[in-house]
């Protein structure tokens, strides 16, 4: 990340600017959703620690910029609509 100018007392006036930092690179496993299976219960959405799950019209999708690949969504999906796959290089 390129450096920026400091502010007085380091006050940060850009709420949510952490989004500039893509944590997707931390991932070694990647979640995939089977939209057909998904019942849109949003358990995965609720539990994802990284807010990396977005609601779509009738299912969900992953924001791979931020998904760290923890596997919680796969584990908690009641209908096994999510599977973790090894991240391709």
């Amino acid at each position: 990340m390129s450096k920026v100018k400091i502010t007085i007392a380091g006050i940060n006036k850009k709420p949510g600017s952490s989004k500039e930092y893509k944590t997707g690179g931390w991932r070694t496993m990647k979640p995939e959703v089977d939209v057909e299976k998904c019942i849109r219960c949003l358990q995965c959405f609720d539990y994802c620690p990284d807010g990396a799950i977005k609601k779509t019209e009738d299912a969900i999708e992953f924001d791979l910029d931020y998904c760290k690949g923890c596997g919680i969504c796969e584990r908690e999906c009641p209908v096994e609509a999510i599977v973790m796959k090894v991240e391709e290089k």
Partner: protein
Amino acid sequence: MGEQKGLTIQGNMATALGAKLSRPDVIPAYPITPSTLFPEKISEYIADGELDASMIRVESEHSAMSACIGASAVGARTCTASASQGIALMHEMLFIAAGMRLPIVMAVGNRAMSAPINIWADHQDTMASRDSGWMQFYAEKNQEGLDLMILAFRIAEDERVLLPAMVGIDGFVLTHTVEGVQAPAQEDVDEFLPPYDPPHGKLDPEEPMTFGSLGTPEYYQELKYDQTKAMDNTPEIIDEIFDEFEEKFGRNYNRITPYRCEDADIILLTMGSMTGTARAAVDEMREEGEKVGLAKLTVFRPFPSDLLKEIAGDVHGLAVVDRNISPGFGGAVFAECAGAFINEKKSPLMKNFIVGLGGREIFKKNFREMYEKTKKAVETGKVEKPVEWINMDEDVMR
């Protein structure tokens, strides 16, 4: 302009009155001798409807300063009072308040540090926080205590400064001593000190900001430099605001005030209430023909090296009188005076005198002794003991 009102009040009442005239919004405070009359008086003002403010009766000084930080960060004018162990307990938070650039003002009743526990006058408490990034003002008398509170808010909140400030008055010698003071009229203070509106930002759901970021090695040094630069810029601003104050209220303040220094060979440098007694001693010695002067340090932080060099640059001896001790070195004021002069072609011989610890009296004769000792050093050209303790009771030494 409103008329000033003559009153006889203790030092703590004077700083409390200075605070009240400054219209603080929030006063988190924890009692500690000898500063306690300050929160007591503020409580009374509020209970009687004379001040519209919120006093938080916190459970410790650490929380006092923490609550100051919270309140100041939402844009409240904030002050507190403390001393000694209380200041030590908020040590951590002092650095944080300064690093966050919050113009909090603290009225201090300067007192010794434990152990042994002692509640009397001594500058160790605030001296030991000289690195914290706070400005430090010291009063010689109650009038100065009152005025410096108002000045402290004004300087601290100046957009070019935004740093917290302490106003020190010596325990008992001022805090509990009644003196006559002139209290400015509220409308004049209101004019001198407009409401506080943080120019750098505040906590507000309408415009969310994060205060107190993590400063990684990539940014920390620059952030500290930025903060330090603000402090380095203050001398001019302080001078400017002192001038404005004099114009408005007729009382003159200086970062260092010289007294009979013009033709002096030797100058005594003092801080706080001891200055009065020193002045009396200087007058006596002058009567006797000694070429002695006095320099009173009102602003210790930022340290006024520039003025000190102006005032004492040509004298032969400078007696630096410290009401504190850094064991393993000497007095804190001494170190900085040395720092001011170290690279000067001409510099006075310097003696450091440790006095008045834990409420030990400082008599005129003690200043005479310091003068004599400095004079002897000047005459012999040698400083055998750079640091000497004055008014010791040899009989009780083990």
